[in-house]
């Protein structure tokens, strides 16, 4: 079932996992205290990679050492997880992160005490081996995106059979649901007749655009990213952009949390900066809702909560938001003290968003 390239990739992963175990073994054998060092995953340790245009980790590293109990346990668990992943690859299985956590129950002393620990470890392994979590056969809980528009894909289904779908004609109104793994070996992008992809935060807005047939009228590929997008979703957007040359426009709520959603799509998330090159779409544009929109369109808006204001101030010190556009927008939002949701556009009627707002905003971006 597995293709040639897939098998080669699996061998590489197994090799790199074994390399980690060997390092620990060597440390012990030479009477040293086992340790691993990993880039610091903080806001202050991300740098813009000029070549790729995405944000990745800088040089600051933290060390996980067996000197402390916490570090020692983490190293031990790393070994157990390595062993488990090896087994999965050999048996051709995959597991959710949550399952991994429960599986570790059987490891007794080496078991995780919270799921956060196992999630974190999965990300650490990506960094240490340079592989993707998908290669480890670990997948998250979150749902992937729903897609509506004239895109044809070929999915290699669980039985190993290639299935071809047009995401407009071969699906119901809820669209095509992408699988957890959207790498080329699982999902091929066959053909597309659209001018751009529109990443939409809320289901209500996605359904509105579907109902109003915005995809047909504006030659758009609608992608419901379901709040903070899953990795598969971000990877999918990246592939749309890279392989099909679609511009990615982001249409989210007008608040700091949605700004972060955009950042994770365009710049790469801080937590996953080690794989920003796989996930981030540096050319993605922020379409709205902007702070200026709140004023220009006189949208129903709620007051910023103290948490909102704090999040905005955090953004001001986030290097990813360093450009003029974001500095102005964040400052304006703090000044106005308001935030607004996508669906606030319904104030002017159900068709306003498709008839007026989106065309205007897309035109401003030089598209459409």
């Amino acid at each position, binding site marked *: 079932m597995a293709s040639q390239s897939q098998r080669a990739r699996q061998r590489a992963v197994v090799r790199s996992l074994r390399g980690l175990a060997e390092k620990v073994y060597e440390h012990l054998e030479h009477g040293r205290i086992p340790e691993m060092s990993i880039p610091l995953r903080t806001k202050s340790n991300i740098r813009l990679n000029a070549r790729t245009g995405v944000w990745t980790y800088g040089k600051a590293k933290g060390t996980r050492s067996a000197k402390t109990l916490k570090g020692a346990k983490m190293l031990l668990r790393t070994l157990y997880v390595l*062993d488990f992943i090896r087994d999965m690859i050999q048996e051709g299985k995959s597991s959710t992160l949550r399952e991994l956590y429960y599986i570790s129950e059987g490891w007794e002393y080496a078991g995780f005490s919270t799921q956060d620990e196992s999630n974190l470890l999965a990300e650490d392994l990506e960094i240490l081996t340079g592989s993707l979590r998908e290669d480890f056969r670990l997948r998250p809980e979150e749902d992937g995106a729903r897609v509506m528009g004239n895109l044809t894909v070929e999915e290699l289904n669980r039985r190993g059979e290639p299935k071809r779908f047009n995401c407009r004609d071969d699906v119901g109104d809820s669209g095509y649901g992408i699988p957890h793994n959207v790498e080329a070996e699982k999902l091929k992008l066959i053909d597309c007749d659209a001018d751009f992809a529109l990443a939409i935060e809320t289901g209500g807005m996605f359904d509105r655009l579907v109902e109003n047939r915005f995809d047909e009228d504006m030659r758009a590929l609608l992608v419901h990213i379901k709040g903070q997008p899953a990795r598969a979703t971000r990877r999918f957007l990246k592939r749309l952009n890279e392989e099909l040359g679609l511009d990615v426009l982001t249409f989210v709520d007008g608040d700091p949390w949605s700004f972060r959603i955009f950042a994770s799509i365009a710049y790469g998330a801080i937590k996953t900066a080690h794989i920003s090159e796989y996930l981030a779409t540096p050319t993605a544009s922020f379409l709205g809702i902007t702070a200026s929109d709140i004023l220009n369109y006189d949208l129903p808006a709620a007051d910023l909560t103290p948490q909102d204001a704090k999040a905005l101030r955090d953004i001001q010190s986030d290097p990813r938001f360093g450009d003029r556009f974001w500095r102005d927008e964040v400052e304006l939002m703090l000044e106005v003290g308001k935030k607004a949701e996508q669906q606030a556009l319904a104030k002017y009627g159900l068709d306003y968003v498709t008839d007026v707002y989106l065309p205007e905003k897309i035109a401003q971006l030089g598209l459409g």
Partner: protein
Amino acid sequence: MPRQSFAERLAAKQREISVSEFFERNKHILGFDSATKALLTSVKEGVDNALDACQEYGVLPDLLVQIDRVDRDEYHLVVEDNGPGIVKRQVPKVFGRLLYGSRFHTWSQTRGQQGLGISGAILYGQITTGKPAVVRSKTAQDDVAYQIELLIDTKRNRPQVLKRDFQVWDREHGTRVETHLRGRFINGRQSVMEYLRATAIVNPYARIVFQPPDGARRTFDRVSSELPRPPVEVKPHPYGVELGTLLQMAKESSHRRLTAFLQSDFSRISSRVAKEICREAEVPPESHPKNLNLSRAKRIHVAFRRVKIMAPPTDCLSPIGQRLIRTGLRNVVGSLRPEFYAPPVTRPPAVYGGHPFQAEVGIVYGGELPGDRPVEILRYANRAPLLYQQGACATAQAIESVDWRRYGLEQRGGRGMPYGPAIILVHVCATRVPFTSEAKEAISPIPEIVAEIVRALQESGRRLRSHMNKKARRAKTSEKFEIVRSVLPLMAEKSAKITGRPPPDITRTIAKIMNVIWIDERVVFEDGRHRVRVQVYNYTSARKRLALHAVLPLDALDEATVQPAPTQLRADGKASWKLPWIPPTEKVVIAFELVGLGRRGYEEGDLFVSGVPTTQVVGAEPLPGDWDLEATLSEGDDLPGDPLAEEVAESG
């Protein structure tokens, strides 16, 4: 002009006020401001007087406190002691005049000081019931007791004796005071019972029998026969004497030379120091004290601080002492199993306004003490408990001014009453305790006193913190222990499995992580026996040899169980084991059993080591110098300059 006569009219009204009248009108100042408090205050004045008398006399106090209810709000109070008694002619004056007594003009640590207390109580009884007090007294050489009924003539502040009598009394000597008073008897907080219990805690040499109005007689038994030494009189110490007071003293001195005056009328001024003061102040030493003028007095006053003068003598003060504070606290805390009793702190004597004083502090922490409320405070002044006016008291103010966050207690902003599972006992003893009012309910926040209490609190606080640090250090070491005992072996196994190689040797890694000799004592209580196991792990990279020492409770030791036999066991219970060489990552175990101690009779032993640098040891202290080690167990068995050990020390 009607105004012309105004000042004259006023003048006609201006006259003297008798001190009895004054307190008659202001009886609340003496602590008689409510019926409940009036009863407590009367008991307190009687008990204070009785304990003072016995202590001065040098007998173990044997007190009776009896309260009967005669009417809805009228009580009959008897306080009886076995003190020296009072000679007949003095009885009326001592009890029938305010500001009359033996202790005001002497400087010594007594509970009563002003000659106000007991006569104040009598005055209060007389005001509220109209009934006279009955005072009985018998000195050692009297066959029968002398008894009078008396009222106080407040206009003149003089006793008015209604009846004199002789009574047969079975006490050899002593005093008995009976008063009637308006009052209210309560139980619980700020009650007579609480007061007596608190008194018993710090006066364990006293026996106090208490008969409440209804209910069973309660006896606080004597638990120590060690009477504190009688208070010693002292002269004022030069520190803190006010300039005006110095002038006054000079004027009244019977001496003719300034040096003689300084030497005799102050404590801690020797003839050498007296001369030095005069030189420093540029005042002729032979000048007559009577002629001391303001500017010279000022220079002498300044010189007091410039010349080195010894601290006040300690024998005039009788602090409760560390042992008794600890015992007292154990009593109070009862069954709450606190985690830690900070070793109590008794500060060296200091001086305020010429009066020597000492501050003492004890802290109990943790266990089942409630942690979500302000700490509890137990306050004492000259061994008498203080129940009222906590907020106004120097003790509370001192506690509030300390930043307890440093010592591990919760406190908003580092000021104010700390929160947490703790009880703080504060005692101030002085040749005169400056109370905020004549009711003696709170110690006035005199800066010098507050500062000394603060120092005692900080010292106690540091001990508390050091306990917490130790706890943290022990926790850290036991974490490392877990690493080397549990994590590393599994890590070796798993990494071997993945790499498909034989298990690696982890000895050197273990030594690198721990680099200590870890001594771990475990006590199990079962079948009435404490089974004790002391395990000595060598978690360094070189083999080690050392000696372990402990003090065994010989009465309880089952000698047959001591494994291995100690190299030496002395009659005082001091035991030493010279242990064999322990290779890296191995251990040696010493075990013994104790019989007949209660469950809480043995919690952990004091363990000491010798033969290795003590910085490498966790779980035992270095052997103290006074242990008197025999030659067989000398130091230096550990090779200095062990190359491996050094390497470890570098990278550790």
